[in-house]
Structure formats: structure tokens, C-alpha cells
């Protein structure tokens, strides 16, 4: 075990825990109200929202998985960069409006808005269930990120004993989320982001220096991995795959419950617009991080005997931890690994709060106990946030990691199907709630079928259009069908409704 690194890691982790509990007193509010516990009282200004959204969207798993994808697959993994570029014009144009609607009507979730706008609680339920299903595996993935760094610290025990550090970390997470609500991840996000920035800039300076410059990094990478393969005849090949992966992921990102929660917790629509301009700072860090994947290739980490066990256990996800172990002194490894582990705590906390908000507001209160008081509502939400995290923990400990990754892939296919109701719903009043519900079902059905045909292993489906193969992100294709169905049925319902009122003479 790496003692210095483990000590520094533990020290930072403990300090952050204290901070999490202390957060309950920060800008204190009545934590028995759902919007106080679950949205931090809608009081976060530009900078807190920047840290919160940054900590929320650029998760530990992102920091492990994006470089891992580059390390294993080369250029295609870089789609994370155009993805995070396209996300912000969408944020700027669409989501300040969601904030305004939510503030005006006291909405806490996207499903609240959808159910109210279309006066259709079943559509609200569909959006709620999609959000819950998409969030659960995402929380489990954060544990994967944390498990990788804990493993890299040198905890070699197998079986349940090997999971003890992970279990401790999650008990801590559950406790401070329960007491402090969204204030805890907001405060911790500041620490996490500072640590991540320090780590990434240190790596991006130290590694090329050790290798003799960036040109040595790229010249060590096999030519086939350096660029996307040029599409063969009668196919758009990797180009359409890369473009639709970026666009589809960008559309999906702010539909995730944890994104909506962070957006609605800001103090004004202007805070969201301002953040659309300053959040790309994180994208830049992510872009640099992605290049660490190539640096791991250039250093030949995969063939070094000291990392063989790690790569065997965690696959390409071990690339970044191995790189840090190879270039940093142990005390800095402790800081870097702590940054990644805390980077898992922040989104996991926000995700569990978002899931709790949805369950309580849109399922418990809307369908099961309409008479419950506001204090009961907040109490249920706290309990649900615990249940969600315990579920994620069991998932990771008792099921193969691959399940979480495959379910998260499906989660992307599903969550994007709420785009017509949530995003277009903000602008188009002519859409019909039932039409959107049918479109949603069709999109979920076809998207899942495409994923199943790929054995849930890949997201890129080879669609054939007029004799040309157009490989593309299954979620994106399913969304297009969903949009066509939603719009066509809305028009049809409007026309038949007009005819019906004309016939009965009520119009």
C-alpha cells in the first residue's frame, strides 16, 4: 500500500466530510421544506452555481472514463469535447426559461413542469420514471470511479473486505446529504474543483516534460488511433457516429435530474446564462484530461509490470491512476486521487437528491399521498436519498461493473426521450400531452431495441438510409423518431379535436 498517498487522501477526505456536515448552517434555511433541502433554497449565485454545475457534470467517472476511452480507442473518445462545446448554447437558449417557469410555479423537478404545462400527470410520471431509471446507474458509475482510485492506492484485498473503503465513503456521503441537502455538495464542489484544476494542470505540464514535449506524445501513438478512420464508400462511417454522439449527448445532458436540480437551485435566470459562458472552462480541462489517455499510451504504462494487476482488474479505466502513480510523488498522488474520489461524492450526492426530489414530488405526492404536508414531503425525500445510495452501493458490490456501464448507456438513450416534453414544451404550446407520451414510448422502445441489437455493448447503431449506412448514436435516432411521432400526433389530435367541437357545436 502507498502509505503517504493514502494518508493525504484520508486527510482530505475527512476535512471534506466535516465541511459537508457544516454546510447545513450555510445560508441556513428551513430544511424541512423540499425546496430548501433539495434545491438549497434557490439561492445559489453565479460562482456557487459554477462550482456546483462543474462538480455535477464533470464527474469522477468522466475524469476516469474519457481518458480511458482515448487510451483504448483513440480519436473517437475525443467526442467528449464537441459534446461539451454544444451543451452550452443549448443551456443558454433553453434552460433559463425552465428556471423562470419553475420559480413562478414552485416546480422542483422537470416532471413538475411537464405535468403542469400539458395538464397531463401521466406524461409527468413518464418523465419522472425516465429520470429515476437514468440516474440510478449513473450513481453506481460514480462508485466505479471511486473504486478505481481506492484500488490504485494499493488496497489489494478481494471480496467484501476490499469494498470496505468504498462502503465507508458512502456512509459518509449518505449522512451529510441527509442532514445538509444540496448545500453539502455545493460547498464540497468548491474544494473538489480546485483540487481537480491543480491536478490536471500539474499532469499536463509534468507528463509532456517527462516525455520531451507534446510532439513525442503524439508520435508515440499508433497512426490508426490518432484520427477517425475515413468512411468507406456508401457509408458515413465514423464521421456521423462522432457527430451524433456529440450532439445527442449534448441534448441529453441537461435533461438528467441532477442537471435540472443544479439549474433550479440558482438564484436567477441570469445566473444560468452567465454560467453558459463560464462553464466551458471545465470543458477545456476535460479536453486536456482526455489527452492524458494518449500520454498513458506514450509512456507505455500498459506494458509495465507494476501496473499489470491494476489494468487486469480495472481495464482501461486504470490508465489515469497509473499515469499519476508513474509521474507524481506519492504526496501529490494522494491529492490527485482525493480530487477524483471527492469528484465522485459531489455528483453522487446531487444525483441522489435529484432522484429523491422526483420520487417524493412526482410519485409519492402526485400519485400516492396527495394530502402529505410540506414537512412530510421533505422527510420522505431525505429517506429516499438514503435508499437510492444504498441501492447503488449494493449494485456495485454484488453485480459485475459491466452492468452499471451498460445501464448507464441505456440511461442516455432513455433520458433524451424527455427532450420533446421538457425542452420543446418550454416553447411550443401546440404540442399535445398524449402525443408526447406516445412519442416518448416509441422513442424508448426503438432506442432500447437498437441498444439490444448491439448487445448493450455499444451506443452507435448502423442505420441504413436510402442505401447509405449512417452509423449514429442510437439515442439520437430514437429522439428523431420520437419528435416526428409527437409532432404528427399533436397536429392530428388538434385537427380531430377541432372537428369534434365543430360537430357538437361547442366551438
Amino acid at each position: 500500500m502507498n502509505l503517504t498517498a493514502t494518508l493525504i487522501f484520508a486527510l482530505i477526505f475527512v476535512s471534506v466530510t466535516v465541511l459537508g456536515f457544516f454546510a447545513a448552517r450555510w445560508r441556513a434555511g428551513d430544511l424541512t421544506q423540499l425546496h430548501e433541502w433539495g434545491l438549497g433554497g434557490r439561492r445559489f449565485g453565479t460562482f456557487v452555481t459554477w462550482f456546483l454545475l462543474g462538480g455535477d457534470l464533470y464527474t469522477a467517472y468522466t475524469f476516469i472514463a474519457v481518458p480511458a476511452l482515448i487510451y483504448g480507442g483513440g480519436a473517437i473518445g475525443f467526442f467528449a469535447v464537441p459534446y461539451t462545446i454544444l451543451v452550452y448554447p443549448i443551456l443558454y437558449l433553453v434552460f433559463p426559461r425552465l428556471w423562470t417557469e419553475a420559480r413562478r410555479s414552485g416546480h422542483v423537478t422537470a416532471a413538475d413542469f411537464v405535468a403542469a404545462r400539458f395538464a397531463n400527470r401521466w406524461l409527468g410520471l413518464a418523465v419522472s420514471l425516465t429520470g429515476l431509471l437514468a440516474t440510478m446507474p449513473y450513481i453506481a458509475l460514480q462508485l466505479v470511479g471511486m473504486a478505481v482510485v481506492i484500488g490504485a492506492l494499493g488496497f489489494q484485498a478481494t471480496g467484501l473486505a476490499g469494498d470496505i473503503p468504498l462502503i465507508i465513503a458512502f456512509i459518509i456521503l449518505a449522512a451529510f446529504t441527509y442532514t445538509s441537502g444540496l448545500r453539502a455538495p455545493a460547498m464540497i464542489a468548491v474544494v473538489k474543483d480546485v483540487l481537480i484544476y491543480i491536478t490536471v494542470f500539474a499532469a499536463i505540464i509534468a507528463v509532456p516534460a517527462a516525455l520531451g514535449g507534446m510532439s513525442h506524445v503524439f508520435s508515440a501513438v499508433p497512426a490508426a488511433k490518432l484520427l477517425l478512420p475515413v468512411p468507406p464508400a456508401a457509408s458515413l462511417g465514423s464521421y456521423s457516429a462522432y457527430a451524433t454522439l456529440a450532439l445527442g449527448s449534448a441534448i441529453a445532458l441537461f435533461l438528467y435530474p441532477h442537471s435540472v436540480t443544479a439549474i433550479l437551485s440558482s438564484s436567477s435566470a441570469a445566473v444560468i446564462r452567465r454560467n453558459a459562458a463560464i462553464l466551458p472552462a471545465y470543458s477545456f480541462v476535460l479536453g486536456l484530461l482526455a489527452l492524458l489517455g494518449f500520454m498513458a499510451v506514450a509512456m507505455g504504462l500498459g506494458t509495465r509490470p507494476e501496473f499489470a494487476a491494476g489494468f487486469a482488474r480495472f481495464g482501461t479505466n486504470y490508465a489515469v491512476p497509473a499515469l499519476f502513480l508513474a509521474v507524481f510523488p506519492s504526496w501529490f498522488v494522494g491529492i490527485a486521487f482525493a480530487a477524483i474520489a471527492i469528484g465522485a461524492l459531489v455528483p453522487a450526492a446531487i444525483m441522489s437528491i435529484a432522484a429523491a426530489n422526483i420520487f417524493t414530488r412526482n410519485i409519492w405526492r402526485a400519485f400516492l399521498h396527495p394530502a402529505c404536508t410540506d414537512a412530510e414531503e421533505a422527510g420522505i425525500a431525505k429517506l429516499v436519498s438514503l435508499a437510492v445510495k444504498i441501492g447503488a452501493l449494493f449494485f456495485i458490490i454484488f453485480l459485475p461493473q459491466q452492468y452499471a456501464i451498460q445501464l448507464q448507456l441505456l440511461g442516455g438513450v432513455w433520458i433524451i426521450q424527455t427532450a420533446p416534453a421538457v425542452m420543446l414544451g418550454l416553447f411550443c404550446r401546440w404540442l399535445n400531452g398524449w402525443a408526447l407520451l406516445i412519442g416518448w414510448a416509441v422513442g424508448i422502445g426503438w432506442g432500447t431495441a437498437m441498444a439490444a441489437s448491439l448487445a448493450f455493448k455499444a451506443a452507435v447503431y448502423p442505420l441504413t438510409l436510402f442505401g447509405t449506412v449512417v452509423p449514429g448514436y442510437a439515442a439520437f435516432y430514437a429522439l428523431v423518431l420520437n419528435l416526428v411521432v409527437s409532432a404528427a400526433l399533436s397536429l392530428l389530435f388538434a385537427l380531430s379535436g377541432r372537428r369534434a367541437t365543430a360537430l357538437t357545436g361547442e366551438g
Partner: protein
Amino acid sequence: MKAPEDTPSGGRTRLRWLLLAPFAAMLDVGSYNRIEPALAGIPFFYWYQLLWILVAAAIIFLVYHREREGHRESDGGGP
């Protein structure tokens, strides 16, 4: 009570169309899938996309700056 977005022109500018530029640039993958010209040893494919992070952020900042006046009154409290 009306949000700024509910009025046809309030806060919006024609500069908004610039927000489409990142989509046009990034979705035309064939236009940047090449090595040369490399910059400080980094192939074009990589530095070009990294550069677009900054360009897109600058565009959003510009649009935000222009539209700020129109939004200021009705956005409600907060800094």
C-alpha cells in the same frame, strides 16, 4: 407577470444566430479530421476542437453581454 422570453423581442438579439456556429463547425467532422497543420506537436484534430471550446464560450459571452440589458428588469433577485 411576464418573463422576458414571453415578449417577442425582449432581451433577444440577432446575435443569437451566432450560437449555431459551434454546431456547424463541430458537426462537420470531415472538415477537421486531419493531422496537419499541427500546433506545437498537437495534431489539428485535437487543437482545433480545443480552440472551439474557447470560441464557443466567447460567442455565448458576447450574446449574454448584448442581451443583459433586456433581461435585467424581469429576471428577479440574485446577483
